[in-house]
């Protein structure tokens, strides 16, 4: 019995960390409609800065530690403002994908900066003074710091609720979440609003990272590890809803804590399964609301037109040149050209679904993988030749798309994108775990 209680509390502690990261992302998305891929980087920066400060204030005891945590979060908030002013302000009107790419660019910059400043090794942070022991809960030891986290989570939730419901700024934020155009029409300074929201979001992410110091070593992998989880929590909870983020974090934290007891291999995919189930049942997340007005006029892609005679001649000439190449160029150039055309094919297919098709898909790589695995498994398990394998590949990918698509097309916008991501991750983890059929993480060698 004590074990169940302790495991439940452990799940709550993980949920608190998840919530801190995810609520900032939810707030940013709710107001600015920007999918902030750099959120994981804010988390990582918060951990690194807090680590440096905590080591400097090591003599100041508990005051030093918590001071380092808060200062670290504030520093990250300031950095978030910098990112917003320098990068994002210029691209608010751009299509969603460009914004995502811009924030991804920030991720890369932060990665290199962190590597340059703190070095490549994992750094173990200090423990929280006064909270570095374990207390007895029903006979089992439970870390004191985890209890502190369990308290911090709801406290932050409460503070945010007060902020949003009792201050003028909060009212503006909630209004902007509901209807941005109207808020602008009523004369509110949107720029200032967005910047302050970004500050809050980045601050919360930095706080989430800083608070991890006693539990995890700080490494350069932190940003990519956390961003997927943060997105899942935000989407499951409903984008723009802080209470939803909290609920989703608790759900996922508890499922993770108990899931590994029942089915240890499930940790890789559990949260994506949960996301898929939730989105199919409640398309806008647990506490999300359907978007009342489209955020901006969607960029209309012109439909594909058949090519004119000159274009056809050009393509035929290009084709003839390509056919002649294997006899003319060096081996390695051929390999590069093959890779170029594979990527070009993939890019064309992605453009087709996102442009003329109008559906943003984050999980497109799954079909690339399905095609590859389909061909490879045919060769390995059935001894087929190259031509049948090449023919089977698109069929395998298409079948997968039919299955996933049935669920996904019922949604739209960013929820559609996240559900495609969820299915892609599920497909990935099945391939990763199913050692006998797909070769597990080694893959199928020797095709």
């Amino acid at each position, binding site marked *: 019995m004590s074990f169940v209680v302790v495991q439940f509390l452990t799940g709550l502690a993980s949920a608190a960390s998840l919530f801190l990261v995810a609520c900032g992302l939810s707030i940013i998305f709710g107001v600015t409609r920007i999918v902030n891929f750099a959120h994981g980087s804010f988390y990582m920066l918060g951990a690194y800065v807090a680590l440096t400060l905590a080591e400097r204030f090591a003599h100041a005891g508990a005051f030093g530690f918590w001071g380092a945590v808060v200062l670290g979060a504030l520093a990250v908030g300031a950095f978030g403002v910098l990112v917003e002013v320098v990068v994002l302000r210029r691209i608010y009107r751009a299509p969603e994908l460009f914004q995502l790419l811009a924030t991804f660019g920030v991720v890369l910059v932060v990665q290199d900066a962190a590597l340059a400043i703190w070095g490549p090794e*994992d750094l*173990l942070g200090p423990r929280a003074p006064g909270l570095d022991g374990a207390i007895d809960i029903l006979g089992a030891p439970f870390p004191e710091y985890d209890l502190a986290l369990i308290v911090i989570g709801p406290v932050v939730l409460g503070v945010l609720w007060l902020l949003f419901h009792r201050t003028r700024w909060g009212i503006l934020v909630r209004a902007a979440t509901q209807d941005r155009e109207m808020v602008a029409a009523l004369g509110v300074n949107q720029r200032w609003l967005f910047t302050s929201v970004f500050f809050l979001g980045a601050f919360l992410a930095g706080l989430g990272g800083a608070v991890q110091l006693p539990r*995890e*070593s700080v490494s350069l992998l932190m940003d990519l590890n956390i961003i997927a989880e943060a997105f899942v929590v935000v989407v499951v909870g409903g984008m723009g809803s802080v209470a939803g983020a909290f609920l989703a974090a608790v759900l996922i934290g508890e499922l993770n804590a108990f899931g590994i007891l029942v089915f240890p291999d499930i*940790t890789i995919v559990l949260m994506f399964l949960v996301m898929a189930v939730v989105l199919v049942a409640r398309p806008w997340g647990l506490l999300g609301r359907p978007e009342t007005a489209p955020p901006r006029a969607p960029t209309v892609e012109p439909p594909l037109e058949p090519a004119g005679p000159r274009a056809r001649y050009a393509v035929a000439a290009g084709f003839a040149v390509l056919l002649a190449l294997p006899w003319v160029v060096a081996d390695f150039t051929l390999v590069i050209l093959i890779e170029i055309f594979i990527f070009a094919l993939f890019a064309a297919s992605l453009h087709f679904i996102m442009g003329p098709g109008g559906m943003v898909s984050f999980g497109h790589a799954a079909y690339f993988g399905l095609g590859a695995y389909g061909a490879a498994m045919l060769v390995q398990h059935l001894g087929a030749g190259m031509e049948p394998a090449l023919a089977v590949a698109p069929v395998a990918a298409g079948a997968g798309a039919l299955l996933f698509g049935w669920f996904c097309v019922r949604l739209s916008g960013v929820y559609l994108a996240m559900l495609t991501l969820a299915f892609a991750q599920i497909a990935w983890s099945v391939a990763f775990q199913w050692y006998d059929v797909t070769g597990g*993480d080694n893959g199928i*060698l020797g095709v």
Partner: protein
Amino acid sequence: MLSRRTLLAFAGAAMAASMLGAAGARAAEPIKIGEINSYTRLPAFTVPYRKGWQLAVAEINAAGGVLGRPIEVVSRDDGGKPGNAVRLADELVRKEGVVMLAGTFFSHIGLAVTDFARQNKVPFVAAEPLSDALTWAKGNRYTFRLRPSTYMQAAMLAEEAAKLPAKRWATLAPNYEYGKSAVAAFKKLLSARRPDVVWVDEEWPPLFKMDAGATVQALANAKPDGIFNVTFGGDLSKFVREGKLRGLFEGRAVVSLLTGEPEYLDPLKGEAPEGWIVTGYPWYDIDTPAHKAFVAAYRAKYDDYPRTGSLVGYNTFKAIAAALARAGSTDREKIVDALEGLSLDTPVGPITFRAIDHQSTMGAFVGRTALKDGRGVMVDWRYANGADYLPSDAEVRKLRPQN
């Protein structure tokens, strides 16, 4: 007045001189060796590893190179992805024209390059990947491995574990090839020595994404007497912290793979666990003349102490140089033949690349962890020779495809 004879004599002399000059230039043309590793994914290991092989190459070239030519290493970063590693291997072989390949760290990447080596008939000296499959289940003529495999190290640890009174054992390993290989080997070897052992729990956290609290709790709930740990890097730090907090290690034996290596033990600083039975590299205590010379040379060049990676990188390229010298040419088949049965001296003693499975007999240091001056160290250690911890030739022939 230049007569025709004088003119011809001059022309002949000039031609001879230019030919000699050209021959001299060709003789100094470097031998290119391709090197692939996960530099950005696990820098704690790969940065010292690179320093190690750079030291080895500098020493080799200072002594005149191999076959009268200097060694040039073309190094690439696979970013921790097997697909990248294969693509880079292709680039190195086709575009850079390397003679052979070396390196890799993660076992699944090592396996991918092993397969590439087989398909393209390129000698590949795998430095660090530990999975048994590299030399056994998926072994081939062109792949050789330097470090002691998971089987060998599990055998060393199982030997120690069998002496303990612990009967109920739990395992904790990252959920990929290396973890699976290590746990399978340890279970088989410990159960063979101690049939009374019961396996009460297995935890398989994803690599570098372990939920330490829940995992430690699950382990504690199974009430094992002994724990076999395969996690490393960030996972190990989390495991040590959460485990100590929740009292997981009290009254329990812990047997841990690779934890005694400085790249995994040093980041723990004062929180390093005590009394764990580990394999590792106590560089500070080894006082053979060869090892002292290695440490001195490394310190002189880098102003830093060597890690396990440094030793691995150093040995890998010394082995490659020895193989090239023994082969007498850069022909790939001759290099493979030269590597089979190759013996050389290393800072930790002589090693041989066995002809039967291409596994080198490099061993590991087995000992216990302890805290000294606020840092984790290995004490009561001994060097376990790799050759003593391999199965019989008959068994190896069954495990390895004979082609």
